[in-house]
């Protein structure tokens, strides 16, 4: 087990290097730092000095790979590649283009993101599984048919509509909760209810259908037939056999996204003005702050790979048939 985890972590290194090289190519080779600076300073009538000083302030004034003017190790160290890409590996995200410490910002903004994402996930999971079990219980009847059509209809609505509609209905017309904003501590609850509620509603369509198909797959298996022929009731078969065995794919599906919850949801956070990592990313994209986008790409990749490792571990925990080598 330990060996396996160690191997997986080793395997993650080439992937991270690949992602790093890809972002480096995207952000520094496709467009040179000078061009990015020109865009930020406003395209026309920008002098070379202005571009120079903009680059200097943000540390973009080095050559890409080799600095001929330095000696020793600094030939490699005083380059954009080392400063901006290699340093990501020690979690040194540097400063954003607007001059803020990215690492500090990420640490601050992680928790509001989690405060929305975790409840949405848990509540959504419970509701979706309940609906799915309900439909499976009534499988091949009108209830199931209408339920599935309803799920497809829910899936076909854009996430933006849920947000705009929910904000309008609940905050503006009924005035139950504030439209947007965030507060520290317990006060945060009244700001969190609506986004969580909307995220849950948004997920019902696809979630329920997905779990329903997992349950249906399980229900065709032989052990279910055995249980039924023993004379067990439909309900007890559903809960004691089908549900328990379908939990394995459900659980592993959840585990893989657990680390990514820190990244938050881009759209929800920016609509509700929640200072999480999702709105951080959106703001960075909209103000073309590439340093933040680069850092978030790297962070997202690390969290995703971490999620995959966790998934493998959780497999061994819930399914004794799986042994990792």
């Amino acid at each position, binding site marked *: 087990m330990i060996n396996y985890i160690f191997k997986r972590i080793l395997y993650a290194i080439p992937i991270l290097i690949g992602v790093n090289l890809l972002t480096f190519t995207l952000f520094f080779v496709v467009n040179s730092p000078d061009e990015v600076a020109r865009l930020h300073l406003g*395209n026309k009538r920008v002098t070379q000095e202005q571009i120079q000083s903009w680059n200097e302030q943000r540390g973009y004034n080095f050559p890409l790979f080799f600095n001929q003017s330095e000696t020793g190790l600094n030939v490699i160290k005083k380059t954009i590649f080392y400063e901006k890409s290699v340093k990501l590996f020690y979690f040194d995200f540097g400063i954003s283009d607007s001059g803020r410490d990215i690492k500090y910002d990420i640490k601050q903004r992680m928790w509001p993101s989690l405060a929305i994402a975790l409840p949405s996930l848990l509540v959504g999971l419970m509701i979706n599984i309940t609906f799915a079990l309900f439909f499976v219980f009534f499988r091949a009847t009108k209830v*199931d048919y209408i339920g599935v059509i309803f799920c497809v209809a829910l899936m076909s609505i854009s996430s933006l*509509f849920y947000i705009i509609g929910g904000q309008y209905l609940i905050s503006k017309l009924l005035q139950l909760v504030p439209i947007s904003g965030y507060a520290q501590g317990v006060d945060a609850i009244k700001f969190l209810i609506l986004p969580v509620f909307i995220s849950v509603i948004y997920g019902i369509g696809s979630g329920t259908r997905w779990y329903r198909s997992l349950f*249906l797959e399980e229900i065709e298996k032989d052990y279910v037939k055995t249980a039924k022929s023993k004379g067990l009731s439909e309900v007890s078969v559903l809960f004691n056999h089908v549900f328990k065995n379908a939990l394995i794919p459900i659980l592993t599906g959840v585990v893989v996204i657990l680390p990514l919850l820190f990244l938050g949801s881009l*759209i929800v956070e920016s609509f509700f003005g929640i200072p999480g990592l999702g709105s951080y*990313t959106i703001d960075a994209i*909209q103000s073309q702050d*590439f340093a933040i986008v680069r850092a978030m790409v790297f962070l997202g990749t690390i969290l*995703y790979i971490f999620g995959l490792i966790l998934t493998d571990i959780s497999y061994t925990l819930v399914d004794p048939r799986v042994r990792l080598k």
Partner: protein
Amino acid sequence: MFVFLLTDIFFYIIIFSIGLYIFYVRKTKDILETWKHVFRSRTGIISIVVLSFFLLIAILDSIHIKEKIYNEQTESFSYESEIKSVLDIILLPTYKNYEKSYSSPFSSNLYSKETIILENNIERRVYPKLLYKGNHNKYASDNTANILLTFIISLLKYFFVFSIFYLFFYFRIIFKSKNNIFIPFKLNKVFLMTLSIIVILSIFLYELSLQYYVLGTDKVGVDVLYKSIKSIRTGILIGTLTTIVMLPFAIFLGIFAGYIGGFVDDVIQYIYTTLNSIPSVLLIASAILMLQVYMANNPLNFENIYERADLRLFFLCMILGLTSWTGLCRLLRGESMKLREVEYVQASKTFGLNRFSIIVRHIMPNIMHIVIITIVLDFSALVLAEAVLSYVNIGVDPTTYSWGNMINAARLEMSKEPIVWWSLFSAFTFMFILVLFANLFSDVVRDAFDPRSNKNYE
């Protein structure tokens, strides 16, 4: 003069490949059987008719022309700089005039008050009357009666068209073979019903929008219904063009990795694991941001804004395609690995068939069902993604008609007092209809093609 925008050409290629596929299916018996399963289902037929209608609009909107104008001073012909599509020409009577600003659906005046100086120099705040529509009832002065009459007239028009078609079928059948004359009615009840409803609705909407702004007007007074219809092309293009970009990567790399294996497999696996590890929104965002910088710094010489907007739409599809082939590639790799060990593939290998022929003859046809399921599944997701991307400002060009841009503009409108809801409403209705039927269609297709699907319970 015909103008071919970049996306147009690719869209024609898509239509052509759909045609080729239909031709291929008609010749291949077992695939035809699977598709018949789709056509036998009621949901399948309805969604195919609706989607074809959307596709038809997109096709009409993809044939672009420049109009010739005669210049009297120089006595020569020149081409207009404005590019029009065939759809624009069909809809021309409904949208050619712009109002001043917002007006609500079916209303006869603007949405906000303006100061108007009356004849005797008295200033008064009133709702100004609309200039072009809303006050030109054709059949009755009362709005409700007029709408009803319009509906009846469009019904009559529909029956007229329908009877001509029916007569056509009737005579063809009479003269060609001695069949039962009622065969056209037996065609398929659901099919005919859906088609009729769509045709009646479109005639009705067309008739109505000659007299009213059925879905109101936007900030600069453009008919919202026209905008929503124009957005269909953008939505469908993003859904289809992206798959066209993605397919070659997914299919070739997937088959090579799975069938050839070894070092090739390792490299391809590494590439897609790396791409797949980056959260897709971030990857798309970074690629598009860089494209924006590139386009801002290298102002290529475009003839006009249409081509610029078109290029951006094309690049958006390219980027979405380049970032989304990994999932399909992994599926195809697994499937071709399985197929490699199957007996008939092994047998053809012993007969001395080369790798290329084995892939074309045995592997390709047997992974096609996965490809088709993925294409139809991805379509609706991509249409939805467009709206989100446009909201983050990394979607289509702001001048392109798209539902995402409409929703983006509607955010400000929603905070107005009283609120302007119709832009948002119409963007969502159109998007919902397209995505809903795409989803229903993909369900039916998946049931038909996926051997693992729970057919017993659908």
